[in-house]
C-alpha cells in the first residue's frame, strides 16, 4: 500500500437482488486531497460510501481507510474518520448543545465545539432544537459534527444539496481550509461548479460502473468538452 493513500478501494461490487448497483469499482484517494464521486441519482454513490464505511455489506472488495480495515478496526478507525450522510439523521427534539456534547464525548481528541459553533455562525443556536434549524444551519452542524474528532478523513454525501449559494460558498471555504490542514475529503455532489472548485480528482459513475476518473482537466480532455457539466452529461449518456 502506498504511504500516501488515505482510502483504497479495490474490486468493489454490490448487488441488490438481481440488480448490480456497483460493478468492480477501484480507486485510491491520496492523503490531503479532495476526491469527488459523481453520478446521477441512483448511480451508486451513497451505496459506495456505505460499503467503504462498512454500513452495508458488499459482495466483494478490498477496502482500507488509513491502512486499516473499516470492519475489523471500526472503533479505532472512526476516531479518525468523520462522516456526514445524505440524510440528516437526528432526533429533532434534541438541542444543538446536547448533540454537540454527546458527539464531543465520543472522541479522544475532539475540537473545541463552542468555538467551532462561533466559526460556523451557529453560536446563537446553542439552545435551539435540531428540528427548528434551517437547511443551511443543519448542514453546517453536520460538518461540525463530522469534524468533531479532528478526523484525518471526512466523507460528505451531497453536503450542499438544498443550500443557498452563499451557504454553499461558506461550506466550500471551510472544506478548503480543512484540506490545507491535511484532511482528506471524500465527497459526492450534483453541483459541477462545486466539484470544479473543490476536487483534486473525480470519478464519474454510471449505473455503478466507472466511466471516467482523473483531474477535472483529464475528464474535459477525455470527452473534448469545455465545461464539466457537458462532460458529465456526455459521460453518463444524457447529452442534450
Amino acid at each position, binding site marked *: 500500500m502506498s504511504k500516501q493513500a488515505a482510502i483504497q478501494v479495490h474490486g468493489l461490487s454490490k448487488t441488490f437482488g438481481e440488480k448490480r448497483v456497483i460493478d468492480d469499482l477501484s480507486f485510491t484517494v491520496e492523503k490531503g486531497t479532495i476526491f469527488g464521486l459523481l453520478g446521477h441519482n441512483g448511480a451508486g454513490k451513497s451505496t459506495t460510501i456505505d460499503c467503504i464505511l462498512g454500513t452495508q455489506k458488499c459482495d466483494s472488495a478490498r477496502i482500507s481507510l488509513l491502512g486499516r480495515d473499516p470492519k475489523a478496526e471500526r*472503533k479505532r478507525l472512526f476516531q479518525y474518520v468523520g462522516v456526514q450522510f445524505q440524510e440528516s439523521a437526528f432526533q429533532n427534539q434534541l438541542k444543538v448543545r446536547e448533540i454537540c456534547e454527546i458527539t464531543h*464525548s465520543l472522541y479522544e481528541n475532539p475540537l473545541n465545539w463552542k468555538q467551532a459553533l462561533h466559526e460556523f455562525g451557529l453560536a446563537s443556536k446553542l439552545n435551539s432544537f435540531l428540528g427548528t434549524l434551517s437547511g443551511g444551519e443543519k448542514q453546517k452542524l453536520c460538518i461540525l459534527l463530522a469534524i468533531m474528532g479532528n478526523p484525518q478523513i471526512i466523507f460528505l454525501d451531497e453536503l450542499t444539496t438544498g443550500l443557498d449559494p452563499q451557504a454553499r460558498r461558506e461550506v466550500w471555504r471551510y472544506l478548503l481550509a480543512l484540506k490545507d490542514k491535511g484532511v482528506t475529503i471524500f465527497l459526492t455532489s450534483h453541483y459541477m461548479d462545486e466539484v470544479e472548485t473543490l476536487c483534486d480528482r473525480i470519478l464519474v459513475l454510471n449505473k455503478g460502473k466507472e466511466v471516467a476518473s482523473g483531474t477535472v482537466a483529464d475528464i474535459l480532455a477525455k470527452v473534448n468538452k469545455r465545461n464539466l457539466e457537458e462532460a458529465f452529461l456526455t459521460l453518463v449518456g444524457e447529452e442534450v
Partner: protein
Amino acid sequence: MKTFWLLYKSEAKLSMREMSSVIFGIFVPVGIICLMAFMDPDNHSLNTNFVAVSTVGICSAGVMGLPLALSSYRERKILKRYQVTPISPAQLLFAHLLFCFTISIVSMLLILGVLITFFQFSYVGHWGQFISAYLLVMVSIHAIGLIVASLSPSEKATGAINSAIFFRCFFFQEQPFHMKSCQPVYRKLPMSCH
C-alpha cells in the same frame, strides 16, 4: 461511561419533551391506582391492585415506548449515524432501555407512595419475592418490546403491533383488575379470561 451517561440523559430529556411515555408510563398507572383505591379501599384489594397496576407501568414503557423509539431510530437512520462513530449503536439502545427501566421503577414507586400516603396501604407479601418477581417481569416485558422492535419492518407496523399487545393486556385482562364492581362489565367483554 461519560458518553453513556450523556446518551441516557438525552434519552430522558427526549422522553420528557415528547411526554407520551411519561403520561402512559407514570401518570396513567398512578391515576388508575387512585381510582381503584377510591372505589375499593380494602387492603387486600389494594395489595392485588398494587401488583397489577405496577405491571401497567412496565407494559407502557416496555411494550409501547421501547419498540417505538427503537424502530424510529432505525428508520430515521440514527443508529446508522452511530455506526460510523467510535461507539456502538448498541450503547444508544442500551441507554434507552435503561431509561425505560427507570420509568417502570419510578411508576411502581409512585404507586406505592400514593397508596401508603393516602390509603393506609400495607403490603402483606414478602418484599424480597415481590422485588425479584417485579424485576423478572420488567426484564421479560422489555424483552418482548425488543423482539417487536427487531422484527417489525417499520415504525408504523411497530405502532400497530404495540397497540395490539398493549391494549389487549390493558382492557381485556380480567385478572389484574380485581374490582368486584367492574367484574360484571369485564365478563361481557370479548377475550376476557374466565
